[in-house]
């Protein structure tokens, strides 16, 4: 085991054998044991191998949160490949882009994926291998250029030899980019295992635990839920109804003991007056990550869980799930600007602060740069982009540092506070949104360069787009175009046409003036 400690597939297989009869996943009142999941994942991994595709490309996972999709994730790793989640809630074009950027040729699809799958298969230039629970003959007839494999034909019992080494990608995710194309973030086995080892050493989980699962699979925080749960022999509890309004009853009905969500989920519960003292006494550990945690929410959650650990995690996908943590309890309540502290960088990892303009080291306050085993090697097939974000810092050795774009302050104890961004990236319910990506799309649609999106966070955060000139002046048409190309959380809520766009002295659109304009109204 020890020599395979950095290979995720080995660790999962070890857990599957060790915890055989425990429930690995439950969805509503149905559950799957570790042994049953191992059989399912092994069958899928044989089907993946039968497709005989380049194992350096990922296996795409398409579907709802089903037994097949979760088994498909393990199966990709068992087949010595990475997995790449697609998202049924994304527009077809977004999923399509992810497929073509990644070079994935194998798609594991569950029974919920029907319409999306068919739309993706209409692609004429590529031939995909589609792995399904059961292949319908009509599907083969309709799409003769693709290959269909039914997992029922791959019931060989033996495991396959895992060929990975630590540097191989374990999962590939995409995050909003500046240029209108999403950025591919390949996270290696070494990266994930470094994160898991830190968390497993710091907090204890056991076979009795019931883990929450609130994240889309396209969100890297879902990896925390799956892997920590399975390596601990616990049960991953999938909400049967994904409605965010039902999360409070989900915690109680499913007897969740380990919680993980974006702070937005807690804010929503608070707005519904469900975040009351002792409301969730079954939770022994609560993690939050993905966006700023308001101190009032941290406090209310602490009361709801009767003072048990509330942990605020911080970290970009490029640093693998999370890389700093702050435990919020009755004695430790550090905050700045009413936002909870993000704590100290994990001791196995490295960090420094820089002046974002000169890229020289500073102290006390600056852009956070990260180094160490959790940091990815660079973006997928984009050296130019990688060179922009992975840089040398004067006086900080030969190594490359990942520039997070997050401006932080550090106090005397080494605790960090998030102070804002240096670029046009914003967070909507924990999702990273680069406002320039929205602008690029709307520029193409309208034919004017004068497009600027801003985040209005005076109340519930929302995206507003200002447009001046252009041939398309129909806000409905513009929104429609956005809905065709962008995930739901990137769609502007309001389009505002202006006669004149305010400019700063550098000749760039002055977004601060636009924000001011909004508040003056």
């Amino acid at each position, binding site marked *: 085991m020890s020599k395979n400690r950095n290979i995720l597939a080995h660790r999962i297989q070890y857990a599957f054998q060790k915890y055989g009869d425990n429930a690995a996943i439950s969805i509503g009142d149905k559950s799957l044991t570790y042994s049953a999941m191992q059989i399912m994942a092994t069958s899928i991994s044989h089907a993946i191998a039968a497709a005989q595709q380049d194992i350096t490309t990922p296996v795409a996972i398409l579907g709802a949160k089903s037994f097949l999709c979760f088994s498909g994730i393990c199966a990709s790793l068992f087949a010595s490949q990475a997995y790449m989640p697609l998202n049924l809630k994304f527009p077809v074009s977004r999923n399509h882009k992810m497929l073509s950027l990644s070079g994935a040729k194998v798609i594991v699809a569950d029974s919920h994926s029907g319409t999306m799958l068919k739309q993706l298969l209409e692609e004429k230039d590529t031939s995909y291998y589609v792995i399904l629970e059961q292949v319908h003959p009509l599907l083969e007839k309709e799409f003769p250029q693709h290959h269909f494999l039914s997992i029922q034909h791959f019931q060989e019992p033996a495991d396959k030899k895992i060929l990975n080494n630590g540097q191989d990608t374990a999962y590939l995710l995409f995050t909003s980019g500046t240029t209108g194309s999403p950025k591919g973030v390949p996270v290696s086995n070494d990266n994930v295992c470094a994160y898991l080892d830190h968390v497993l050493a710091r907090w204890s989980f056991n076979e009795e635990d019931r883990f929450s699962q609130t994240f889309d699979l396209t969100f890297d925080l879902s990896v925390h839920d799956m892997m920590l749960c399975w390596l601990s022999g616990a049960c991953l509890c999938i909400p049967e109804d994904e409605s965010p*309004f039902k999360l409070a009853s989900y915690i109680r009905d499913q007897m969740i003991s380990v919680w993980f969500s974006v702070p937005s989920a807690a804010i929503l519960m608070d*707005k*519904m007056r*469900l975040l009351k003292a002792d409301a969730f006494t079954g939770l022994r550990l609560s993690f939050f990550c993905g966006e700023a945690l308001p101190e009032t929410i941290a406090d209310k959650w602490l009361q709801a869980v009767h003072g048990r650990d509330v942990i605020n995690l911080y970290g970009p996908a490029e640093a693998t799930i999370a890389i700093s943590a702050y435990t919020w309890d009755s004695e430790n309540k550090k905050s700045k600007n009413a936002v909870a502290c993000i704590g100290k960088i994990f001791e196995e990892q490295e960090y420094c602060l820089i002046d974002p303009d000169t890229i020289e080291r500073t102290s006390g306050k600056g852009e956070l740069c990260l180094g160490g085993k959790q940091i990815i090697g660079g973006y997928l097939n984009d050296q130019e982009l990688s060179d922009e974000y992975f840089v040398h810092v004067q006086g900080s050795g030969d190594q490359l540092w990942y520039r997070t774009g997050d401006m932080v302050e550090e106090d005397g104890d080494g605790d960090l506070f998030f102070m804002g961004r240096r670029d046009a990236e914003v967070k909507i319910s924990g999702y990273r949104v680069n406002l320039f990506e929205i602008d690029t799309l709307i520029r193409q649609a309208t034919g004017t360069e004068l497009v600027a999106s801003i985040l209005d966070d005076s109340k*519930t955060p929302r995206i507003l787009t200002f447009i001046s000139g252009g041939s398309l002046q129909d806000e*409905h048409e513009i929104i429609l175009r956005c809905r065709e190309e962008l995930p*739901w959380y990137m769609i502007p809520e*309001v389009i505002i046409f202006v006669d004149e766009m305010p400019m700063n002295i550098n000749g760039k659109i002055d977004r601060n003036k636009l924000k001011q304009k909004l508040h003056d109204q």
Partner: protein
Amino acid sequence: MTNKKIRDYILGILNERLLLFDIDRGELNDDFDLVKSGLLDSMAFIDLVAEAEEEFGIEIDFEQLADSDDFTSLGGLAEIIMNTKNAE
């Protein structure tokens, strides 16, 4: 308190969004889902409920609502507001 008055009030607040989505108020059925349709996200929906609570001087019991499947629909929401108001 009539259902129609509440419905009109909700649609009044949503006017800007409906225009943006090119949805004709007159064509909206009671089962039109304000969240699943993409018109509002969950946070914006709860903000809308909070506005309605203030307008009608009521406090909705979300604990009970969580079990209902149609409280995010236009008719469902109007009914909950009406029932809460009339129960006072």
